[in-house]
């Protein structure tokens, strides 16, 4: 018999380690194993405790330290308790989901190789090994898989380009520098099912003929670093990784711009994370000048399922040119935050009002930022937008890495626009003048607008500055920062017609001192 206490960073941040220690101590005489899986993804229930029963796992949550004494007497019988949630498969947050990539996260022990194999792990790789590299790439192409990091570039095309590029060495680089606020799917996946990511990278290596892989993982994720480190060692001892293809873990150093693929490559090479001009594409000349596939964690983690179940199954989900499922992350001021993997096509309103259950604060939701700090702020009037790359582009927004951050009616969108500019100023790599200097000017212009200094004229300057940033920047940091600013201006103009509400909420002390 097993008891599961979530070991995901979100659960640990709420006291799951203390809960697990108490339960372990109490159950030790009865030789019951306490497993620490990743998160099931329903975050209001963390720390989550589950017990194995003949009819499936029964969940309790949230269980804090002080709840353990009342839980212990009923836990093994899955008895009644105020925090009893029942079988999560029947919980409203889960019934509408379609988990392909996250099927095992929260279920298996992320440290256990046998758990991984017993739950369908390595099936994709087994299929891939029976195929020619070009056949693997054809299956990825046919699945319609697009880069989940935000750009949405067809993964098969990127692989094909790298496979056909001449080079003595080729690399698979996993972008695990998940810096966008409101996103945590990469972290959850790495903490909950690390072998899936490794399997995806091994399949990519087979397809393009790579001999070495890198996982570039941000330093802000210490638990994911620990899980991946352990998983890589296990993958080596189990033969999944070997001299013919091994993976090295590299830790970021707090630079947001290193989530941009060329800055990330510079960083692995031991340099400042300054963006490169493209061309050459990384697929032609990437890491150390060699053909390189740079894919996001979720892109690589989608690969084993596509190989195991067939590309037509994956392509059978979704809408338009957005095929398959998207692990959407519901965050910020929502009652039901968490990881919600569904086929593309749900509307923003369904995600926020129905799945997300409205605001946590109980106040009306006024704005939703989709796609991280460089994503647009959408008002309620745009809640009918379906979650789809093209549909969001058409409304001057982006889905990015799938983060949805809700704000209630206390939000000041002029302050949020200022924050976007200030964030860009702090995180700019400095290569492009509009991003390096324009972002600082943007903060100043917004301050003048909010301070009612030539407001009308400065609003024109701000719009002009956004144009310059959009067309004068090499990468998405400077190029996309107009999204939050212009959407705030367009949909919430009244916020720019008044003085700041309180002490400047977008103030970023400390970092800009460097």
């Amino acid at each position, binding site marked *: 018999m097993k008891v599961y206490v979530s070991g995901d*960073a*979100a659960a*640990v*941040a*709420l*006291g799951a380690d203390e809960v697990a220690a108490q339960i372990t101590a109490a159950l030790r005489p009865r030789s019951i194993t306490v497993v620490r899986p990743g998160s099931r993804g329903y*975050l*209001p229930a*963390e720390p989550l405790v589950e017990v194995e029963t003949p009819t499936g796992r029964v969940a309790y949550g949230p269980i*804090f330290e002080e709840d353990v004494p009342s839980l212990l007497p009923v836990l093994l019988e899955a008895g009644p308790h105020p925090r009893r949630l029942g079988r999560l498969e029947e919980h409203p947050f889960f019934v509408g989901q379609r988990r392909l990539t996250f099927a095992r996260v929260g279920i298996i022990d992320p440290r256990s190789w046998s758990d991984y194999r017993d739950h369908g792990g390595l099936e994709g790789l087994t299929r891939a090994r029976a195929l020619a590299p070009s056949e693997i790439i054809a299956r990825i192409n046919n699945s319609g898989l697009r880069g989940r990091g935000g750009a949405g570039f067809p993964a098969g095309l990127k692989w094909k380009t790298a496979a056909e590029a001449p080079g003595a060495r080729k690399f698979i680089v996993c972008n695990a520098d*998940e*810096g966008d*606020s*409101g*996103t*945590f799917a990469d972290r*959850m996946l790495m903490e909950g099912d690390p072998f899936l990511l490794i399997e995806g990278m091994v399949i990519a290596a087979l397809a393009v003929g790579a001999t070495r892989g890198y996982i570039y993982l941000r*330093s*802000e*994720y*210490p*638990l994911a670093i620990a899980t991946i480190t352990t998983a890589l060692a296990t993958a080596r001892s189990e033969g999944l990784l070997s001299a013919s293809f091994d993976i*090295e873990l*590299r*830790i*970021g*150093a*707090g630079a*947001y711009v290193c989530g941009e693929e060329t800055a990330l490559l510079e*960083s*692995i*090479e*031991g*340099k*400042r*994370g*300054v963006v490169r001009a493209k061309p050459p594409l990384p697929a032609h000349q990437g890491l*150390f000048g060699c053909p390189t596939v740079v894919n996001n964690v979720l892109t690589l983690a989608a690969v084993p399922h596509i190989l195991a179940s067939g590309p037509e199954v994956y392509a059978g989900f979704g809408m338009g040119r957005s095929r398959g499922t998207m692990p959407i*992350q519901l*965050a*910020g*001021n*929502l009652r039901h*935050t*968490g990881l919600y993997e569904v086929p593309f096509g749900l509307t923003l309103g369904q995600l926020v009002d129905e799945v997300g259950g409205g605001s946590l604060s109980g106040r009306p939701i006024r704005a939703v*930022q989709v796609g991280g*700090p460089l994503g647009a702020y959408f008002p309620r009037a745009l809640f009918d937008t379906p979650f789809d790359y093209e549909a969001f582009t058409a409304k001057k927004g982006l889905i990015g890495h799938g*983060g949805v*951050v809700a704000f209630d009616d206390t*939000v000041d969108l002029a302050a*949020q626009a200022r*924050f976007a500019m200030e*964030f860009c100023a702090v995180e700019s790599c400095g290569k492009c003048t509009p991003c390096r200097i324009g972002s600082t000017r943007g903060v100043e212009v917004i301050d003048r607008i909010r301070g009612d200094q030539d407001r009308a004229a400065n609003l024109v300057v701000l719009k002009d500055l956004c144009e310059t940033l959009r067309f004068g920047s090499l990468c998405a940091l400077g190029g996309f920062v107009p999204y939050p600013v212009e959407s705030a201006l367009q949909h919430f103009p009244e916020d720019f017609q008044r003085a700041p509400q309180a002490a400047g*909420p977008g103030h*970023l*002390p*400390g*970092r800009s*001192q*460097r």
Partner: protein
Amino acid sequence: MGHSSDFDPAEAARLALEHSHQEGALLPILHALQGRFGWIAPEAVAWVAERLNLSRAEVHGVVSFYHDFRDHPAGRQVIKVCQAEACQARGARHVTAQLEERLGVKLGQTAPDRSLTLEPVYCLGLCGNGPAALVDGRPYADLSGRGLARCLKGVGR
């Protein structure tokens, strides 16, 4: 992390040896040195430059580019509190002000007795349970609610 001590070339050489097989090993070596010594002192910059056959300007350029690398020692404990949008939407600004008051130090500053440093961080991936913080690498969430007391306990306050 958080502690600081005098730079020791012999110890640095031992740490760097573990990274001698890596291509482009500058960041891993800097992480190792900062993990051991608490910061990247000027003599560490010179030592790394010599070791990797780089100019001191190149090493300094990398140290100053990345927010993680310190060119002066931090407090014995480092508290990183998230300032990004998802935590803002859940009350991060108010929580930051509370932490500043309870810890007696402003965001971005180190306490005069060097006991702690309070820093901003932009996303810890705890966006559904924020506001969030890291105390010496240990995550804390729900700082608008029950998490604040846990976090302060973790800081020893």
